[in-house]
């Protein structure tokens, strides 16, 4: 039987681990609350953008009279030959299956697309996603070409893509999740729209962990471009939470004081739905067409922003659940070890008593 001293040392070490996982859980819970709040506060803007776009497009001349379709490059579908996939995972580990689940879902989606004979460009967002692909997927190669015109005043600049493999990394975004800054995401949108415009890519998808609440999350693939319907999310669910996971997440949330459901729609959100949609004859300072064209890229930006915010919340929720389970395991281990230690100590005491008693009897 193990020695009491060894057991005591082990218990102390597991207690330290418990302390750490417990602290991590509290930190994740606090960060989760903040992330949830951020996601909530970002809703009115996204909603307003969708409402006003929907409203101006009805008043614009952008409709094709014959087919009734809206004429805008971001809404026009063409055969998908080259697909861009944004993969949002986390920046850190210790979050249970969070990063692995997203990696698996992305992999499945990529395989599906490859089987359909399409090329896939990847843009991993977050350090874990980058680490996942860096090892086995090559970076895309661009050739920078500059031609001077005869008059020597202007130049023609072109970035020519040389595709070497069916799956390549088009760009990496290691810092995007740190602050979830809209200007960084807007720059990403600009680059996506430029590539979409030049037909380097024909469609854009985003793989991320959708977060409705702590107990309602799923890994989804959302179609970003071309946009089929304004204001709606076109997504395929890759993985849902099991009942067991929901249970674990729910119990972790209850213990850390995180709400299980998100608050109801705020007054701002209700108002946001009406933005730009009043049934009046607006005076258009600029034409509806122009406002529509101006706002379209911003709409794409908010879609990515939304995915990023949800993914951040989901990551913290996953870490909270994982560290809660770790704390629970540590507690069980401590209980078990304490029992063994007490037994060992008792055995030693009993042995000593027997020795004393038999010693006394021998006299």
């Amino acid at each position, binding site marked *: 039987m193990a020695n009491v001293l060894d057991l005591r040392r082990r218990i102390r070490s597991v207690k330290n681990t418990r302390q750490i996982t417990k602290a991590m859980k509290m930190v994740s819970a606090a960060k989760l609350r903040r992330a949830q709040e*951020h996601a909530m*506060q*970002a809703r*009115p*803007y*996204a909603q*307003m*953008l969708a409402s*006003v776009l929907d409203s*101006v497009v009805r008043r614009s001349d952008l409709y094709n009279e014959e087919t009734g379709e809206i004429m805008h490059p971001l809404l026009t579908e063409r055969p998908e030959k080259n697909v861009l996939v944004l993969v949002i995972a986390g920046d850190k580990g210790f979050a249970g299956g969070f990063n692995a689940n997203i990696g698996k879902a992305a992999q499945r989606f990529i395989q599906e697309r490859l089987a359909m004979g399409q090329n896939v460009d990847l843009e991993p967002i977050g350090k874990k996603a980058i680490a996942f692909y860096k090892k086995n997927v090559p970076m895309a190669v661009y050739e920078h070409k*500059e031609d001077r*015109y005869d008059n020597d005043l*202007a*130049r*023609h*600049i*072109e970035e020519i893509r040389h595709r070497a493999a069916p799956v390549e990394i088009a760009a990496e975004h290691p810092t995007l999740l740190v602050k979830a800054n*809209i*200007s960084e995401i*807007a720059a990403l949108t*600009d680059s996506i729209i430029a590539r979409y415009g030049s037909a380097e890519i024909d469609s854009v998808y985003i793989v991320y962990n959708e977060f409705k609440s702590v107990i309602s999350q799923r890994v989804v693939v959302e179609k970003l471009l071309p946009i089929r319907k304004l204001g709606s999310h076109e997504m395929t669910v890759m993985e849902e939470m099991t009942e067991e996971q929901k249970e674990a997440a729910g119990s972790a949330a209850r213990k850390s004081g995180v709400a299980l459901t998100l608050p109801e729609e705020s007054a*701002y959100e209700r*108002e*946001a739905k009406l*933005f*730009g949609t*009043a049934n*009046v*004859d*607006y*005076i*258009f*300072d*600029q034409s*509806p067409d*122009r*406002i529509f064209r*101006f*706002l379209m890229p*911003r709409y794409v*930006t*908010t879609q990515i*922003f939304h995915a990023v915010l949800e993914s951040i919340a989901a990551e913290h929720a996953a870490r909270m659940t994982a560290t809660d389970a770790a704390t629970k395991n540590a507690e069980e281990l401590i209980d078990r070890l304490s029992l063994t230690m007490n037994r060992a100590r008792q055995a030693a005491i009993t042995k000593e008593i027997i020795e004393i008693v038999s010693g006394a009897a021998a006299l």
Partner: protein
Amino acid sequence: MAEVGTNAGLLAVRLVTPDRVLLDATAEAVELPSMSGYLETLYGAAPLLAELGSGEVRLHGGSAGEQVFFVAWGCAEVLPERVTILAEVAMPLDEIDPEQVQAELRHGAELWEQAGDDPEKYDKANAVTRVAEAKLASVAHRNAEAGKR
């Protein structure tokens, strides 16, 4: 005309950014930088939709008091009793960081340099520079105002 409520004569003003609702207040008058120049709205104004230029939103009177925000990239809706401004960039003037503005100016110059013969890229570069210059103008204006006092 709008219904006469408790806020009769006052405009409900909202300034919404991608991050949050930055301002929710009432005001007697609101000045907005539209793409075609500044416009000032009062209670009962005709409904209007405008693309925002870069510049200052100024609020006068009401619960907002005198407040100034820098805004860029967005659009605004004016209804008789409310003004809603949607802006990708919106901040109180104090929060404009001159160093960051210089970086934005450099970024604009870089974009211009790399535009080649693509008119759209020139437009983009110009827009970036315009926003940065408008920020500088706002800061200069604020400093001048502070100097007067």
